[in-house]
């Protein structure tokens, strides 16, 4: 509550005769940003969404010992439409990434993403695998990355604190979700002979033609 006590009622207002007595010390003045972010950062609803080993540590974080609910974040929702934080907890495979992107698109703004562990960050020990996406940030924007394989529950808690810091710094004036314009929908990748990112389709077509003609695709 540090922000609120700092923004307590100024002394000149407390002495102002126009302020009724019963409102003195009961009126707080703060900026809209602060009260908005203060509420938001303590009621983030993570999505009940586990991918691999890191999900086990995520559950351990939610359990009584590490106790996620101290942060006001314990309400995990299985539906993306009720969640505003996606914890990508595990190896992102090519077969799974279309679903992950779709889930991300279904989450309402404001939404955040934590890449938990080495795999979600960059592919981890399985990076060289043919079915592994080298980091979820190839497709969806990530707010906080944590290292570890898997990260300890404390590391996940640390990432929550980092995300809270990030939320605190956002301002209503420039957050994307109150702006006019197109909705930011990420095109869902397609499973073809290999994973096809629709945003790169033109480039893929060009290179595949080059290779078919025997030129090196530089």
């Amino acid at each position, binding site marked *: 509550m540090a922000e609120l006590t700092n923004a307590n009622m100024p002394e000149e207002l407390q002495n102002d005769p126009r302020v009724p007595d019963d409102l003195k010390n009961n009126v707080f003045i703060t900026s809209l940003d602060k009260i908005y972010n203060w509420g938001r950062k303590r009621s983030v609803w993570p999505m009940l969404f586990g991918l*691999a080993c890191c999900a086990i540590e995520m559950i351990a974080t939610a359990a009584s010992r590490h106790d996620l609910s101290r942060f006001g974040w314990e309400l995990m929702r299985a539906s*993306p439409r009720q969640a505003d934080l996606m914890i990508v907890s595990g190896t992102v*495979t090519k077969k799974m990434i279309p679903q992950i992107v779709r889930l991300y698109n279904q989450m309402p703004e404001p939404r955040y993403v934590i890449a938990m562990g080495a795999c979600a960050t960059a592919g981890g020990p399985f990076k060289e695998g043919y079915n592994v996406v080298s980091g979820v940030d190839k497709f969806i924007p990530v707010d906080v990355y944590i290292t570890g394989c898997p990260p300890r529950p404390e590391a996940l808690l640390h990432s929550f604190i980092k995300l809270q810091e990030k939320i605190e710094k956002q301002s209503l004036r420039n957050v994307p979700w109150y702006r006019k314009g197109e909705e930011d929908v990420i095109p869902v990748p397609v*499973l073809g002979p290999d994973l096809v990112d629709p945003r790169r389709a033109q480039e893929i077509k060009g290179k*595949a033609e080059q290779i078919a003609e025997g030129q090196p*695709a530089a």
Partner: protein
Amino acid sequence: MAEETTPPTSAEPAASKPAVPARPAAAAGGAKPTAAAKPAGHAAPKGPPLATLTPELAQLQQQFGESVIAPAPYVGVLVNDLGKLREVMTYVRDQLGFDMLANATAVDYIKEGYIEVVYHPQRSKGGEPITLKVRVPRGNDPVAPTEVAVPSLVPVYAGAEFQEREIYDMFGVRFEGHPDLRRILTWEGFYGWPLRKDWREPYYEGDTKPFESRWPGGHHQLAEERVPWQDNVNYPPGFDPLNFQANPDAGLYDSMLGGVPGVEVEPNGQAQRSPQPKGVGASVPVLDRNYNNLADDEELQTDQIIVNMGPQHPSTHGVLRMVVKLDGETVTDLKLVLGYLHRNHEKIGERNTWLHNIPYTDRLDYICGIANELGYVITVEKMMGIKPTERAEYLRVIMTELTRIESHFWAIGFLLNDLGAFYTPALYFITERDLILDLFESVTGSRLMCNYMRFGGVSRDLTEDQIMRARELAFERIPRKIDELEQLLTDNEIIKARTIGVGYLPAERSINYSLTGPCLRAAGVPYDIRRVDPYSIYDRFDFDIPVFYGADVYDRYRVRVAEMRQSLRIVQQALNQLDQTKPGDIQAGKKAYNHRVPAGQAYGRVETPKGELGFYLVSDGGQNAYRYHVRSSSFINLNSLKEMTVGQKVADAVVILGSLDIVLGEVDR
């Protein structure tokens, strides 16, 4: 870990690496009858030694003649006549008593030009499995499957269904007569057959590790900078994503719309299922009973619907996708879509050195990493012919059994979760589980991915303090917790009402489906590898194999509880006997970075909390595995889910899946 991760110094020159021949696709044409998988530079005798036949295999040879059954290199027999394979396997099952197909996999011998399909049938009464192999020409087309098809063994062993699909997916071996031969771990339309030796992943650097290119000129280089597409993708020449329609699920829905019959199983008097309804959209009677042909009445007919559960679903224990066909609330058909966590364990494992693979095995069944490591190291030790020290054996047993307790806590907690007791029981058990993980962390440095085992030993000894903690857990805390668990759950009326008789699968069918682990023992089959084919030092301890006969969800729960108590007994005995061993003596021989495994083949298996975990390893004498296959119990146990679930309510499908206790890391690998 620190003592073994020193990079290979000049004392181990690069020349000691096996000469890796370039393996272009075209070079595999001529079927040269050379030694199996011997790289140049090794003192290769004239071909690998042929296996000596066990009595059972000799009997098999006598039955079918030497032209059909011939000794294979290293181990097992070769079935030379593909047309007789099913007949041979039926004989193996019915006459020799090998009623369970433990494992089926394939090996691509690219130089010889064939793919060898390997079967490991075993007896549910115990003993070692036998090995049968067949060979098919591999062909050089990167996309087409093999021309010659292997007869599918699904009619003989129902447990072959997923395994054959996996072989098809990974090697492109066709199986004739398979009820539903589609890709299983990758997706329909995937380019190529990933585990063939000439198939290269997009980030390909070399056939074997350690790679030279990780540190070119002393500078770090990202894999993305090295490859033409700047990403982990590879497209066939001329691929046009703009004019491309992907429909990976078409085959799946076709197979559920009545076009493909269900798994044919040879009648052995069991599981007479009602005839399958025609499919979605087709009207089927509401009532089976004949009330003056009410069912024919148009108004009482109903549609079936297909519901996708997963891969993002709170009940599927990870990224599993269950596709169920529902008639009202009743499940009439079920298909599984796997591979959402397919992390290419086997392809990476064939690039890795032998030692590299130990931490990867942790990530198979990530609930009980140490148990997986044990399976891998004892298989490699079998091939290397080394034995761990006495102290290391005890430490292995203590850690593995603690893992079993921890895993069963998890399984029961989340089974209750599926039953609707949302998180409260799970939270109770996670408390104790965390204490076990604390011990793991203080010994190995990691809670889940312990990387504890080494060939011939373990990485760290237990200190006095850690032994005291283990004793407190084993003698005080965990027994108390199990008592509490039983008090709360075992006679709980709601649990009994929801679980008794649900997910029934009788013993004969379970065996035919290659079901292993607690689920098989809940069907009355006392099959536990610790007892029927003992490994490590399990023959020294006094413990029981709990068996129940209900073959339903309730007995699977009870088996797990009873097993936790037996595991505690083992840990207690092992802790008591630990002071008879020499402290610090945890590694046989010298610690080594490069291990050389003699050329050969081995199938090793252990009893993990989920069931039988097997490793089929083929070595060509180098420092990498030529073939590295994981026989995962979670994957093969899923074969039987359909038969357990069809006819039950959809809410019970979730519970039945929970009672199988699968871990997706092990299912998809």
